[in-house]
Structure formats: C-alpha cells, structure tokens
C-alpha cells in the first residue's frame, strides 16, 4: 500500500453546514475584546447547527510583552501578499510642540509620494540608517534580520563619531518601528520585524490605549543614550519607546519616545489609517 493510500482518510468529507455556519457566526462584527473564539466541536455536533458551541479562550497573556509581539508576528506573516500598489499610511506626527499630518504611499522599492499638511512631495525616508537599505534583501528570520539591521547601523556614518552599542540599539529599535509603520514589505518580512522587536532586551507590558483612545496591545522598550535621540531636548541617558498595536491586524496604532523620567513624549506617531492601495492617491476604505 502506498503512502497516498495510507493517508487517504485524511481527505475527509466536505465541511458540514454546521461547521460553515459556525465560522460565519464567529466572524460577525463584535466589540473588541481580549478573547478569541474557539469552536468546541464534538464529532456528533457536525450534523446539527444548533449543537455547535462557541467558547471563549483567553488570548495571549497581556502581561507577557514577548508573547504579544510574537502573536503580532504570526498575524503579520499570515497577511496575504501584495504584488503591486502601495502601502498607505496616514500618520499624525508630533515632535515636541510641532504637529503634522502625513499621508504616505510607498512601493516595494521604498519610493512613492507623501503629503504633509497638504504639501505634496516625493516620499523620501531620509533618516540616515534606513536611507540606502534594500528592504527586499532583508532576511525574514528575526535573529538574522536583527543582525542585518545592526550591521547596517554600524556600517553607516551618518552621525558624527562611531556609533556605540547603545546608539546602535536605539537606532535598530527606531528603524524597526519605522519599517513596521511605513515600509511596503512582504508578510514574511513584516512578521520578522515584529519577531525582531520581540528579541530586544528590556521589554515590558504597558497601558493599552493609543493617543486616540483606541484599544491595543502595548509594550515599552528602553531607548538608550541621550545623543542618539533625534530632536531631543536634553533628556539624559535612557528614555522609553512605547509601542501600541492592533493584535487583530498587527498594524501599529502608535509609537512614542519619552525621555528619562517619563512625562510628555518627545515624539508621538499615531497611525490614523493604514493599508494597501492600488494607485498613488488612493486611500483604503
């Protein structure tokens, strides 16, 4: 008997009406909550839709920041691939007292258009370490991705002096957040970006509302070294990155950078909309 013959019973009957109905029932719009639904399906239930029960299981442990980020990585990697078009983001950016609203359309080559407070221009990331990065060549395994980003940071001379370990750590974290927010990547790379974030030291759970009051999962990471903080206002030593994201979509809701001692963040990036669109100027529904 061949292996095909031995495993043929796995090609079972088509899904029952009860199973199909259960999927649609579980997919109905519902208020966000920190549970996921699980089909408790006994074999006898397959013949009767009324016998299908939906039970709630706890979601990822919200006190474990690594688990939260790994869950986001899995969600991101399951996204369908997009072969054409642009990643669209609408971001409210605040740097100290200055606030601007930015829309970006970014293609797979890190090119596109941006509209900042109504002024249209080419999309140009332009922040040193990421400027010449070939996104399509980045590894899709988190440890290798982290190593590649670190090597890229150490190989750049965009700031005076050689980057210290702390500065590299700051820049890598900053780069991961910018890539997660704006870059038009494959699902695999997007999953690896979340996975790489989960590898960084000093992760802690945090409050789960963004500046717009939206629910999400939240983590904080240390942001070391004063001179590495762009637009800094004299904060010393170690600040804090706060990252808030939607666990259902793995999209960033906001991230911010706060100086030592807490207080008002030096910069806040709130993602009002994000998604994939076919053409420049299109916006997701």
């Amino acid at each position, binding site marked *: *008997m*061949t*292996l*095909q013959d*031995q*495993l*043929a*019973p*796995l*090609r*079972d009957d*088509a*899904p029952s009406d009860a*199973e*199909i109905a*259960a*999927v*649609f029932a*579980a*997919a*109905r*719009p*519902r*208020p*966000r909550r920190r549970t996921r639904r*699980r*089909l408790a*399906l*006994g*074999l006898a239930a397959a013949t009767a839709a009324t016998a299908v029960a939906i039970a709630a299981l706890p979601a990822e442990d919200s006190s474990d920041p690594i688990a939260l980020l790994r869950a986001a990585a*899995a969600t991101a*990697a*399951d*996204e*369908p*691939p*997009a*072969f054409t078009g642009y990643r669209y983001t609408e971001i409210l950016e605040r740097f100290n007292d200055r606030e601007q609203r930015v829309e970006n359309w970014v293609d797979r080559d890190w090119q596109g258009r941006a509209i900042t407070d109504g002024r249209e221009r080419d999309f140009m990331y332009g922040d040193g370490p990421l400027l010449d990065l070939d996104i399509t060549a980045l590894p*899709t395994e988190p440890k290798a991705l982290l190593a590649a980003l670190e090597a890229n940071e150490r190989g750049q001379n965009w700031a005076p002096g050689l980057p210290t370990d702390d500065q590299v750590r700051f820049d890598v974290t900053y780069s991961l957040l910018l890539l997660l927010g704006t870059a038009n990547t494959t699902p*695999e790379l997007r999953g690896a970006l979340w996975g790489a974030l989960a590898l960084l030291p000093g992760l802690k759970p945090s409050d789960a509302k963004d500046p717009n009051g939206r629910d999400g999962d939240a983590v904080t990471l240390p942001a070391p070294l004063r001179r590495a903080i762009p637009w800094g206002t004299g904060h010393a030593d170690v600040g804090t990155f706060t990252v808030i994201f939607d666990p*259902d979509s793995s999209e960033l809701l906001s991230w911010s950078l706060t100086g030592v001692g807490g207080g008002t963040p030096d910069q806040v990036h709130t993602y009002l909309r994000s998604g*994939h669109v076919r053409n420049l100027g299109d916006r997701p529904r």
Partner: protein
Amino acid sequence: MIDLAPPTTANERLVVRALTIGRRTALGVLGDREAAADVAQEVALIALQKAGDVRDLDPWLHKVAVRRALKEARRNRDRRDAEARARVPAPDDDPLTGALELLDGLPPRQRAALTLRYVHDLPDAAIAKALGCRTGTVRSLLSRGREALRSEL
C-alpha cells in the same frame, strides 16, 4: 472589529475551501480531530478577513494552515501528549485513526511536509512556500519522513 459582508456564495466557497485545507493539514500535523477542527476554523476566519485581495488562494491557505498547525503543535505539545495517553483507543477498523497513527511520533514539520505531498498532492516548490523553507529542505523532510515510515508501509 471585523467588518464582513454577509454570507454569499463566494464567501461560502471560500470558507469551505479554507476549512478543507485547514482541517486536512492540521489533522496531518497534529493527529487530533478536535484540534484540527479548531485550526480549520481559525484558517477560515483569517480567510474571510483577508482573502479579498489574494490572487492565488490555495498557496496562501496552505501557508496559513501550516503556520497555524505548527503553532498549535508547539503550544500544546505537552498537553496533547497527556491527553493522548489518557484517550480511549478508537476502533481498530477506523481508517482515519490508522492514518493518524502512521504519522504519530514524527516531528511536526515532517508531518506537515508529508501531509502537503501525500494528502494535498503539492509539488516541492509549493510545499517550500507553505513551510517557508527551501526546496532542498522539503526534499530532506520528505526523505526522512518516508524513511521513518518505511517499516509501516
């Protein structure tokens, strides 16, 4: 919040396809009917949410199903081992039980590769995409899996 169109013929076809691929894959990887039903439902829900723009549906569904099944295998390895020991044996003449026992004891990725080849009839390249590895790795997984099963065949 998930915002979905009501069930339509197209959506129903999508759910049926996702449930079918999800369950067959998860059965092969996990060897547990209830866990496979859970994974299949997860795959179908993901498909309803995200499949709208997918041009090539089946490869994407295979990838999602494999990832979900392997994740479930990692998460519940210990629990399911205990449950398996306590489970009342199924009748000897149940063909599905026999098929699942055949794969029992193999590592999850080998089980996934064998299931994708011998249940879904996928070629090496498609299995590599679903598993997120090189085709050489797929050939190695299949070879080692077949070798392990040699005495059963």
